[in-house]
């Protein structure tokens, strides 16, 4: 007999998929315009988000234990819906319209979002893989959507090949793990490796980490990021930069904490992520310095932010090599930091890409020197851009500061001193390249003095995002509303919660 929770928690995914299919049909048969499709898609996202808000944060296994609902799942569902809404709105309102297939360009992100939401609640490697493929395949199309542009094609090919490669690594790793354990369920694997772990499983975990490393653009698996960021349409770059990265992060959390969270697992993944974090912090932030193209700069900056997030992920480890086991409070501390970081990253990144999308239509190019004198041509765009950059740099009282402060707090608390030093160094280096565009916007005299007009909706959204950047920074309690209780369910399986088999 089906328990009532069998599919309840799957409702957001079902709703969004069905709605996306209906929209495809509507577009085909009623020849709706891209703008009408966008409105309908946003309405669908809104309904899904409202529905998700009604779900609690109690841990529940559902859909034959393929999925698990918990605080983190709820948080990431809402996070991905927000990302999707902003990206879809931006594609229609701000950005240069795509020349063909306007409807599909709106609907495909809905499928991506469905995949991301499934990732957020996955409790099984098979489901995880299928959901990840749903995400990446729809993104392959979106990245190369402007197929007449050589840059877009280059981006698409690179993303396709490296994405395929990373999926292969992931599947290979899962195969190893399945080969030894005979199961793909997260909560079934966890208790097997509390006291020891065969080398083959460790190797499998390593392969899985490489696969996930590609998704979150962790050095040395970041090669695709700058090129893809540059070639993809702005809304998709923003989606990749925030949504796809957050997707990678939730998989990472589910796997490293939920599956291999116990001591022997930590001995494998902590050193790997440790090296990855240091390399990402250094390479991402240093390689961004010589960049002149703003989208490439954001690409490297995004690699650097992966590094900061990884510090927090390591801080959530149950046991660190050479260190004592952490208390539950400390675990939750690391996880909360990841969520807070992602929220602040979302606000700043979307503000930047909305501004870039406006500018792409008005400026001859998106190099730093094209920004010259923007503060006089459009004070709002310049202020929004500057504040988001400063927030990403972690300067108070903006939102990004809270995230950076929490990362430093976690690193200190878990005695990750080398990481702490690298983090501070990277944050200072980052300030240098974030100041570059600010300098261009505020000091340099404009070559072309015509004001850049921004339409009313865009202004309203930008002002809203700026207000959120400041409010979440100055009044950090406001983030706590979002991330309160947004932690992964405790990894130890509890029979009470196994509501369905």
């Amino acid at each position, binding site marked *: 007999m089906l328990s009532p929770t069998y599919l309840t928690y799957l409702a957001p995914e079902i709703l969004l998929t069905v709605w996306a299919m209906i929209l495809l049909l509507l577009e085909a048969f009623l020849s709706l315009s891209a703008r009408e499709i966008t409105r309908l898609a946003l309405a669908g996202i809104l309904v899904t988000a409202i529905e998700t808000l009604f779900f609690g944060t109690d841990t529940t296994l559902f859909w034959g234990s393929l999925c698990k609902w918990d605080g983190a799942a709820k948080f990431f569902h809402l996070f991905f819906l927000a990302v999707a809404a902003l990206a879809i709105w931006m594609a229609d309102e701000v950005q240069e319209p795509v020349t063909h297939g306007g409807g599909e360009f709106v609907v495909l992100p809905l499928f991506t979002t469905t995949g991301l939401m499934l990732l957020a609640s996955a409790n099984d490697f098979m489901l995880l893989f299928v959901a990840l493929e749903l995400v990446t395949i729809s993104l392959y199309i979106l990245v190369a959507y402007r197929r007449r542009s050589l840059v877009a094609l280059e981006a698409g090919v690179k993303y396709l090949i490296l994405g395929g490669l990373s999926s292969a690594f992931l599947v290979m790793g899962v195969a190893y793990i399945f080969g030894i354990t005979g199961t793909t369920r997260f909560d079934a694997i966890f208790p097997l490796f509390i006291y020891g772990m065969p080398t083959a499983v460790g190797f499998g975990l390593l392969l899985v980490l490489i696969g996930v490393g590609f998704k979150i653009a962790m050095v040395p698996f970041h090669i695709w990021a700058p090129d893809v960021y540059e070639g993809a349409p702005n809304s998709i770059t923003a989606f990749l930069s925030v949504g796809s990265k957050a997707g990678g992060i939730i998989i990472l959390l589910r796997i490293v904490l939920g599956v291999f969270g116990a001591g022997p697992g930590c001995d494998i993944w902590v050193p790997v992520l440790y090296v990855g974090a240091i390399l990402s912090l250094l390479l991402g932030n240093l390689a961004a310095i010589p960049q002149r193209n703003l989208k490439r700069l954001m690409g490297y900056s995004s690699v650097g932010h992966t590094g900061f997030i990884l510090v927090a992920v390591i801080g959530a480890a149950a046991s660190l090599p050479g260190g004592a086991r952490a208390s539950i*409070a400390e675990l*939750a*501390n*690391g996880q*909360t*930091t990841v969520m*807070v970081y992602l929220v602040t990253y979302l606000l700043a990144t979307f503000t930047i890409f909305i501004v870039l999308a406006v500018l792409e239509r008005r400026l001859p190019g998106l190099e730093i020197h094209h920004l010259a004198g923007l*503060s*006089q041509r459009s004070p709002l765009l310049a202020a929004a851009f*500057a504040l988001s950059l*400063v927030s990403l*740099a*972690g*300067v*108070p*009282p903006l939102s990004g*500061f*809270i995230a*950076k*402060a*929490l990362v*430093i*707090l*976690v690193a*200190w*608390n878990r005695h990750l001193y080398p990481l*702490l030093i690298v983090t*501070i160094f990277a*944050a*200072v280096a980052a*300030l*240098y390249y974030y*100041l570059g565009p*600010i*300098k261009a916007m*505020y*000091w340099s005299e404009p070559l072309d003095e015509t004001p850049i007009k921004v339409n009313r909706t865009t202004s309203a959204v930008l002002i809203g995002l700026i207000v959120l950047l400041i409010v979440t*920074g*100055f*009044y*950090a*309690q406001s*983030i*706590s509303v979002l*991330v*309160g209780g947004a*932690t992964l369910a405790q990894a130890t399986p509890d029979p009470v919660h196994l509501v369905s088999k």
Partner: protein
Amino acid sequence: MNSTLSPLLGLLFAPLAAIILIIFKAPARRTAGIATAFNLVFSVALIAFYPAAQGGYYYVMDLAWTTLPGLPPIRFHLGADGISLPLLFLTAIVSFAAIAISPATIRRSSEYYCYLLLMSLGAMGAFMSLDLFFFYIFHEFALIPTFLLIGIWGSQNRQFASFQVTIYLMAGSLILLAGLVALVMAVPAEARTFDIVALQGYITNHPLSPTVQNEIFPIVLIGFGILVGLFPFHSWAPPGYASAPPAAAMLHAGILKKFALYGMIRIAIPMLHQGFETFLPILTLLLLGNFLYAGFITVAQKELPTMIGFSSIMHMGYLFLGIACWNVLGVSGAVVLMVGHGLSAALLFGLSGEITQRSGENRFNELGGLAQRAPVLAILFTFASMASMGVPGLANFAGEVMVFFGSYSSFLIIYAVAAVFGTVITAIFQLRAIKAIFYGPMEARYEPHRVTTPSTAGEEVIELPGMTDVATLAENAPYVLLIVASLIIGFMPFLLIHIVQPSVSLLPFMK
């Protein structure tokens, strides 16, 4: 918990309201002037109504602010005592002067005044915060405005200077943040808080272990040291101040640098006293670097703005020395000297701006004899130099004497001698500057003269005024205000000391 509104909010509200009004197209200079004038009057009133004799925090408000999972509670806790009130007054008077000396015709004036107000707002907030979180973020309000002020309105090497200042200060701030986080996390989980008063209370009863203190104190010291320009972390300041517009240099050198010293008095030394004592020999060695190394470099400067930049670094040595004594006399002296130095640094930076602006020259060997053309400016500059040298009758003297005696009565006698020697160095470079700028032969170009330039319609004759003086009342009033403040404190230091001393003697471990 005291949720009543504190009058201190007024000091924050005035600049904030002015910024909002300016964004909505209010006349920038006048709005900023009114807001800072209000703050000046208001800060004097706050000092007048402060029950000085008993010391301790007054005008307190305390609201629960943030309880984020994993983050110790943050409280919006404001309050002022005899240490912070003089600094609030200093902030108010220097902000007012900085805005009053700014030219009305400056380009992009609304942005300019907003950034100045933001710096002032940040300093105000930092000095009245009794919560580490707000203490820290209010100070950081100034970071980006400083970058923009130097970058947009700066002179000389503004590009390099603005990046250097911003990145150096960001590095210092982040190191400080790590230190403060370490301090908060060093106490057991149930006592963790960002609230300075609560944290201090806990630490007084349960001192941290010496090992922990010895770990954390150097981090905090390096963080504060960078922000204040403690030798060898001072190299950002002189080129930065030399390139900054005078008003920004006044605010930064006059007020914002005091944030780090205030932090040493309020946080680092009381809470990490054992660590402080361990590192005292190193700290004193470094401040000797400020006196002597920076002092001799100052003497060697060939340009007025860099000379003043280095001299402000040099004077940080006295302030650090006063704090390092950690006795009532020395620390009270340091607070008085902070006010005195704030006034004199603001004067010097403002006047140096006037001189370079009006003569178009900042190298000593090109200047000379300007007293003939600008007697008022010469008088004002001489006053400022005297204040900076610590001539009796001006505020710096009162502070310096207290610091000397304070260090003499503690074990830092050798440093007291070095500090007295430092005043001699100050006298050397300040007197040389006065002579080089205002006396001796004057070059002809400082006289009103005509220049003929070839133009399309034959030759064009342009009248050039040469060197001009700060003639009108509006031009010299801000400087006179600062000098009068310095004179009042100089002649009647007890006005300030009787506010400062009781609060200083309440500090933990005070000798």
